[in-house]
């Protein structure tokens, strides 16, 4: 009896698995998006944008990404599975652009057009890249910081990492803009918290301890910005905070005035433009090599404007 129960158990597991199969409509173009992350709100907003475009252009999209941003091998497995599904095109945000090149060559050989999004790939294979101009976005953050602290004093930067394109570009964009335009502002510290709220909080507090006369801090992504807010709150310091991206906690900090303002990318637009570019490529239309999906600065005065509210996510 036991054996039969086991076999029934195994069979029902398979049945459960198969019940998840929502038969794909065969006539629709299929475009899988392989992202850098998944559960983070930013990526969910990109997913939303891709789904909006899928509806508009009547194509089928799926959205997948590794659970955390270090898992290069998982992402390659996802690309392999996506390719097996014989897609019309593939959207891809590389965790490590070099490491994924053998797989990208395979996709290229199979004649499937590749659309890069969010982070670029050091290769000629992608037809186009839908991304934020992070250097320009961080330079705008530097301008806003200078404005808020009166053009002089010490500031610090907390970023998520020094390996990804976004991490490098945002730190460079901010630091170079300060160096070029604001000689009286000094960037005393650039630290990396892995985008982790708690680690970034601790780093913030130690920077505040080391520099009691600090005027402002820039958090270069959602996790870093929240960390700065928490750290400043815990240390009861009074400095200007400029953030990056949105999310419920960051929006609340801006609304309450704790954070002066933040740069937001347009994640919904990134997802939308990726699918749109894929459809255009499949139809034989030419697309520009880089699609700038735009960015905005928001503070408590403009965050409820329809244009801004549409790109902020919780």
């Amino acid at each position, binding site marked *: 009896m036991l054996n039969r129960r086991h076999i029934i158990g195994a*069979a029902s597991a398979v049945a459960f698995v198969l019940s998840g199969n929502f038969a794909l409509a065969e006539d629709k173009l299929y475009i899988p998006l392989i992202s850098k992350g998944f559960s983070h709100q930013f990526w969910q907003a990109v997913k939303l944008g891709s789904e909006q475009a899928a509806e508009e252009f009547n194509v089928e999209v799926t959205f997948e990404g590794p659970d955390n941003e270090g898992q290069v091998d998982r992402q390659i497995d996802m690309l392999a599975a996506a390719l097996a599904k014989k897609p019309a095109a593939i959207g891809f945000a590389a965790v490590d652009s070099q490491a994924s090149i053998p797989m990208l060559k395979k996709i290229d050989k199979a004649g499937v057009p590749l659309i890069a999004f969010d982070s670029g790939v050091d290769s000629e294979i992608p037809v186009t890249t839908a991304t934020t101009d992070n250097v320009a976005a961080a330079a705008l953050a530097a301008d806003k910081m200078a404005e808020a602290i009166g053009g002089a004093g010490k500031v610090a930067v907390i970023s998520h990492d020094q390996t990804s394109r976004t991490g490098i570009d945002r730190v460079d964009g901010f630091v170079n803009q300060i160096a070029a335009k604001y000689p009286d502002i000094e960037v005393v510290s650039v630290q990396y918290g892995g985008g982790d709220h708690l680690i970034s909080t601790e780093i913030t507090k130690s920077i505040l301890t080391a520099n009691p006369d600090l005027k402002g801090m820039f958090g270069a992504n959602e996790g870093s910005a929240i960390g700065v807010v928490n750290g400043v709150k815990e240390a009861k310091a009074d400095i200007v905070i400029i953030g990056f991206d949105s999310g419920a906690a960051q929006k609340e900090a801006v609304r309450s005035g704790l954070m002066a303002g933040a740069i937001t990318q347009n994640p919904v637009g990134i997802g939308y433009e990726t699918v749109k570019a894929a459809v255009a490529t499949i139809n034989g239309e030419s697309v520009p090599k880089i699609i700038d999906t735009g960015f905005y600065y928001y503070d408590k005065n403009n965050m409820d404007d329809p244009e801004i509210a549409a790109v902020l996510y919780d």
Partner: protein
Amino acid sequence: MTVVNSTSTPSLFARLIDTGAHQKLLAFASLVLLLIGFSIASPNFMQTSNMIAILQATSVNGILAVAATLVIITGGIDLSVGTLMTFCAVIAGVVLTNLGLPLPLGVIAAIGAGAFCGLCSGTFVSKMKIPPFIATLGMMLILKGLSLVISGTRPIYFNDTPGFDLISLGSIIGDFFPALPIPNGVLILFLVAGITSWILSRTILGRYCFALGSNEEAVRLSGVNTDRWKIAIYSLAGSIVGIGGLVMASRLNSAQPALGLGYELEAIAAVVIGGTSLSGGRGTIVGTLIGALIMAVLTNGLRILSVAQEWQTVVTGSIIILAVYADMVRRKKA
């Protein structure tokens, strides 16, 4: 099956259950069922290229799981296999890219680093009497940190070592049978599994591995230096993880220092699905291989069916619980 049959001579199936091969059979049957199920559900699943993709996805987790099996059979647990894999890859990166030494030295260094770390874990567990869970948890964190320190938190690329990518991505089998381009990484997995299986069943090290897991006190009282054998087993497991690190690094053509955390749990899941008991004394490498394949087939198949990612992990978790439950029921019966 007639009444006469089942009372006088046990059927083949019943005999398999009695000899304990039943758990393996159950795992194997589940694997076959999954393969058939996914093939029916999607025409894209059963293609040579996709089967190879599944095997390739199994290669690293499979090797880590083989190492974890050894430790688990002794009644221990190894939480450090994921970050040790990364550490060994980083060591290979330092030797090959930063120092510019030839390829064989990088291979030896990676496997040696694995063996040394295994020796450390084994010493903590046996000589210092730290519970394996804590000792390897400590190692896991130490190695995660060291990988970041040594690499300067940046990936180390192997662009200056021609042929390094062939360890994982080349295909010796494909050179002889062009229709079957099975990557070397998969070949390495099967070689490692074969050799480990042989060690477990044919050598004194293997026998002590099971004996320690069944009743360590009895083994010690019969005059065996249990500490030494335990350290040897942890070292062997470490060197296998070193091979896993090489396969991973070769596949990515880089040592990724941030990688590794979470891989130990997937390896342990594969071991458990394969029927190895977490309380020690019982387990097989073949079972572990099947367990690793089930995990890879499941992940790949669910992706091919475009099941939402949120649900993929729910299904994987359910399968693990089902597998362990089957194991429990069987043991209660025995």
